[in-house]
């Protein structure tokens, strides 16, 4: 059983090796750039932030911008990285299911003695690894940028900040498998889940901007995302979101097992 999933995961990662670099290197370079320019913009930023409305600072997680970690949170980890990784997650998981159905690969795989739920599980596991590799590349390049610029970036804080994106993105991989239970068209799956990703972000943002609407944040996974680069990883949120992602993947596999795979 595990040998089949292992073979499928290796094949998935081999197919997507270019994607690992295509996402990890630009995100890492962008993040490194943010770290590199911090010492030269630090003073001006502090003044600018003081003039921002408090609601805006709260909404985008900007407390103060007196450390490189705070700057990295504001520039990368509050918006760009979670949205990019969420989208990458659904693209990756869809390539192993709806993409495989469109290319004909799924028919070939399902000619072998492997169940559909195992293929779905392998696609989810491969996406989890892919996300981890992209985040690791990003952390490595960011840390190198910090070293070169003398920005005094804490490696453990950077690891916590980027690792915290992993369960959040994985949740959208789980949603992608659920979407595959309803459609085998990659554009439909990625479009639908990307829509949920953006909607959840906006819901969380609105909930943070308006205290009267703070209850709606519970409908968004971003409610549990936090600010790990400054506060450390919240184990309950990290494990809870990971568990939710796995539960969604299991639901998706169940739906995928029961649907027709038309020619």
């Amino acid at each position, binding site marked *: 059983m595990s040998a089949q999933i292992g073979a499928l995961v290796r094949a998935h990662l081999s197919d997507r090796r270019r994607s690992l670099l295509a996402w990890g290197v630009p995100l890492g370079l962008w993040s490194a750039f943010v770290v590199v320019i911090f010492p030269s913009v630090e003073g001006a930023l502090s003044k600018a932030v003081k003039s921002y409305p408090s609601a805006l600072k709260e909404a985008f997680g900007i407390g103060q911008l007196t450390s490189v970690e705070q700057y990295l949170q504001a520039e990368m980890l509050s918006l760009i990285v979670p949205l990019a990784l969420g989208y990458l997650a659904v693209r990756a998981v869809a390539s192993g299911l709806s993409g495989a159905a469109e290319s004909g690969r799924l028919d070939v795989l399902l000619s072998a003695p492997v*169940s559909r739920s195992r293929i779905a599980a392998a696609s989810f596991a491969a996406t989890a690894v892919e996300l981890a590799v992209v985040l690791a590349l990003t952390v490595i390049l960011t840390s190198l940028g910090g070293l070169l610029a003398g920005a005094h970036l804490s490696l453990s804080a950077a690891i916590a900040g980027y690792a915290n994106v992993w369960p959040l993105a994985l949740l959208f991989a789980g949603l992608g498998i659920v979407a595959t239970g309803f459609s085998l068209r990659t554009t439909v799956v990625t479009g639908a889940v990307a829509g949920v990703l953006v909607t959840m972000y906006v819901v969380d943002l609105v909930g943070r901007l308006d205290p009267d609407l703070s209850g709606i944040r519970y409908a968004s996974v971003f409610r549990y995302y936090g600010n790990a680069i400054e506060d450390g990883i919240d184990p309950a949120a990290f494990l809870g979101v990971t568990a939710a992602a796995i539960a969604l993947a299991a639901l998706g596999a169940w739906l995928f097992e029961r649907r027709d795979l038309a020619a």
Partner: protein
Amino acid sequence: MPVIETDGLTKLYGSSRGIEDVSFSVEAAEVFGFLGPNGAGKTTTIRALLDLLHPSAGSARIFGLDSRRESVAIRARLGNLPGDFGYGRQATGRGALRLVARLRGIDGLGRAEALAERFRADLDRPLGELSRGNRQKVGLILATFHSPELLILDEPTSGLDPLMQEEFLALVAEERERGCTVLLSSHELDEVERVCDRVGIVRDGKLIAVERVADLLGKTQRRNLVEVEFAQPVELKDVRAIPGVVDAEFAHATLEEVFLTYYGEGPR
């Protein structure tokens, strides 16, 4: 016990026609042809057998196992060439074979190399760079490399040139000799006639006849049209002068015969 047995297999989806009340059986080491035009329901039947489509009604048993509940166990013993074979543009045939071999728990690639040589298939080029016929060869190798007990082939010769079609028909005959059962869908009567023991004719989603190929040909034979070969060239007027003959024409070689004349010694 039949290798394949369907009972009232029905698949209805939306406004599109599926299949209705399809019942047939295929015995061990038999080559069974599924004959019908495109859209008749051949592929739908095959996909229902493979549990890719879930039947609306009826059932199918393969090796005596339920095609839905025991699909994984069934697939361990069969090889399948899907219609319009594809696997993605970047992957190579060898990569696909390695993965499928691992999923089957097979060490190495079995007889894949020998089959690749026989069909002159390139296993190392990305499938997206191969012509449809050359991709189809890779699909045939994927279906047969593990010497399955049952081969399910959906339009197997589509895209293959006449030489490779000949090679394919020879392979099917060898598989039958080995004891393999073959279910082959086609819309080419000539292909079915050459390799199949029995044929099921599908029209508008229904199986309208199951016949032995010889019986089918006997029924459709035109008893007043005869192809005659003379030892020497003749004049048409001499043939027409034979009592009872109303017309005579020289036979033209088919494109396939022309092809085989020029390339016939090539591939072996």
